[in-house]
């Protein structure tokens, strides 16, 4: 994504160029967490083979947990990166949208019967419908942002408030449960496929990542979103349609939300409207920020965001390992966010670079 940036940074000397590489931030965070865990408790890296409840041989261990639970976050980070790049804002309704998509999925599968013996349609058909619903809500957000020019975070605040209520309303506030008798395969999406020791969500996330990387490579999506994010009016003068592109990024995020919802719902074989994907919007934004992407839009690096997502999950797992209660987690993450945004703030960067004596003249022009 940044051959130009690399060219520029190669001119300066070694530590500076490393520091300025976008992948530096997520990898540095990853490294710090790894070293911290290695010192605090080496059992963090232990991976064991054991029998699951269903009788399959599966891999277990904190690292596997991170790869497993980080999947939804990685999938969301894809869409969130695009939205951030194009609009310079973030979608804070993804958690609520996951509740809606998950609720739709269950509604289609179970009908009005909350304990069905057989599913009414195939999981794939239900998934397609939930994708459509999630895309429709994404399109709604996109419409508010692109056409009515409302700040993304405020526009998505609407769905953030109403989302979980809508999700409860779709299923009439019932909590359908899909038993293994009704569908033995439904739990595979969030668990294990017999015979494969690696959790399925990881494969789903990997597939999503491959798809988006191919799309970015073979289409102009990446170029156009960045162009719109950097300067909307000049992108319009160059023949792009900024309104459509902004709208499109929200629709793509809608697809990501539906995939994440499938995994989330499959994990429980049920849903809890007020808890499902709670606070995930914070993690998704954090993943984008940790990937070194400017939250004010413009250039982005998809790989960095995805690595950022797994680093966030590692932070969560590490905190859990040290017995931090789940309700207190946001406080720690908030501190991380603040530190990140402070260090990436232009005002602070300028000061840091001024402290780099002698180098300031060379890099001043690049940064500005």
């Amino acid at each position, binding site marked *: 994504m940044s051959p130009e940036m690399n060219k520029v940074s190669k001119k300066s000397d070694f530590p500076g160029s490393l520091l300025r590489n976008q992948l530096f931030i997520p990898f540095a965070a990853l490294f710090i967490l790894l070293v911290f865990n290695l010192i605090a408790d080496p059992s963090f890296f232990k991976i064991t083979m054991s029998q699951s409840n269903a009788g399959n041989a599966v891999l277990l261990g904190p690292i596997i947990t991170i790869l497993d639970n980080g999947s939804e976050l990685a999938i969301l980070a894809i869409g969130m990166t695009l939205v951030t790049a194009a609009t310079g804002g973030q979608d804070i309704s993804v958690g609520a949208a996951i509740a809606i998509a998950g609720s739709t999925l269950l509604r289609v599968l179970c009908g009005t019967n909350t304990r069905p013996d057989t599913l009414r349609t195939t999981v794939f058909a239900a998934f397609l419908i939930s994708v459509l619903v999630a895309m429709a809500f994404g399109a709604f957000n996109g419409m508010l942002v692109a056409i009515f020019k409302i700040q993304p*975070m405020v526009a998505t605040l609407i769905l953030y*408030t*109403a989302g979980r209520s809508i999700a409860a309303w779709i299923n009439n506030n019932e909590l359908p449960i899909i038993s293994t008798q009704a569908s033995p395969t439904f739990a595979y999406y969030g668990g294990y496929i017999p015979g494969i020791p690696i959790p399925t969500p990881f494969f789903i996330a990997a597939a999503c990542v491959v798809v988006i990387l191919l799309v970015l490579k073979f289409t102009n999506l990446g170029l156009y979103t960045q162009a719109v994010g950097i300067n909307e009016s000049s992108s319009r003068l160059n023949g792009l349609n900024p309104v459509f592109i902004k709208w499109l990024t929200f629709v793509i995020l809608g697809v990501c939300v539906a995939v994440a919802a499938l995994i989330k719902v499959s994990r429980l074989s049920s849903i809890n409207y007020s808890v499902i994907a709670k606070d995930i919007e914070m993690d998704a934004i954090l993943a984008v920020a940790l990937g070194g992407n400017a939250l004010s839009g413009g250039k982005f690096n998809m790989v960095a965001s995805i690595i950022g997502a797994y680093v966030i999950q590692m932070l969560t797992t590490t905190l859990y390992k040290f017995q931090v209660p789940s*309700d*207190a987690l946001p*406080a720690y*993450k*908030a501190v991380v966010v603040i530190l990140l945004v402070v260090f990436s703030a232009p005002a602070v960067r300028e000061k840091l670079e001024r402290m780099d004596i002698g180098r300031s003249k060379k890099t001043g022009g690049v940064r500005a």
Partner: protein
Amino acid sequence: MGKKLKNMTDSNLLLLITIVIFFLMYVGAVVFQGKGFLKAQTFFNILNENAALIILACGMSLVMITGGIDISVGGVTALVTMCCAVYLDRHDGNVGFSIVIALLIGLAFGIVQGYLVAYLDIQPFIVSLAGMFFARGMTTIVNTNPFNVENAEFVALKATRVVVPFMGTINKKGKYVDAYVEIGVIVALIMVILLFCFLRWTSLGRSFYAVGGNKQSALMLGINVKKTKFLSHLICSILAGIGGYVYFLHVGSGAATNAQGAEMNAIASSIIGGTMLTGGVGNIIGTLFGVLSLATIKNIVASAGLDQAWWTGITIAAMLCIFLVIQSVVMARKKK
């Protein structure tokens, strides 16, 4: 000068829409929901329930007028209730100092958030999002389980009622029942009047509008833009501290789930009250009516039998959506 005049008409137009909608809604409620809404006490109960929200929304309007936003106010409210509850109950503290605690919490949040937004130029949404999560997380760290405060001094203060003269009703037994409001309402109304005067008649208050309307020209007028932004966040957070204490006085308990979604209601009230998200336009009186409209809608939804929790969320979101679109249309018209 012409631009200023145009802005003022916008402001007045949005304010007018809000007030008209509020009265229409209230009249509609009286007509369709029976005479309950005709009693003065019903209206005072709406005030009692929403005193804290009025204070939070006023702070929110202030920040929004300068073009920022602060979604940490709900979290700060929860943190204030929990800290004060723990101090009063577990440490046998006195009420006076608990108010100081509330103010200090607001002050701390205000200084940090204001500094990050104004002097480091970080997006206010990100800063206050982190602030919100920090406050909610800290609330659980201070104390996990919700509990009621039984401190005698505090309970006495909580039970204090202010009688409103001549507004009482005669009950079925023919006895005169006084109409009352809680102390929080008095505090809220004082805040509304103070802020209204501040925004309208002080030069600092006028500079809030200037900064929100156009940063560049505000700078050229010699206004210290950074300081103004800093002050707006500072005042908003202090008001969140005060609002937190008023909320605490109303519910009388400390809980991490207190004031859930209050930031959202505060933003919605401000927007409904005619404050523009883009900054530069807004009116505290409008915000007051915004809160009242929101509360009336909630009451109508509840008394219409649609008391399932989700209807409240959906109606508020729908109302917010409509008002946002109205604003967007007004803005688009102005540009032409």
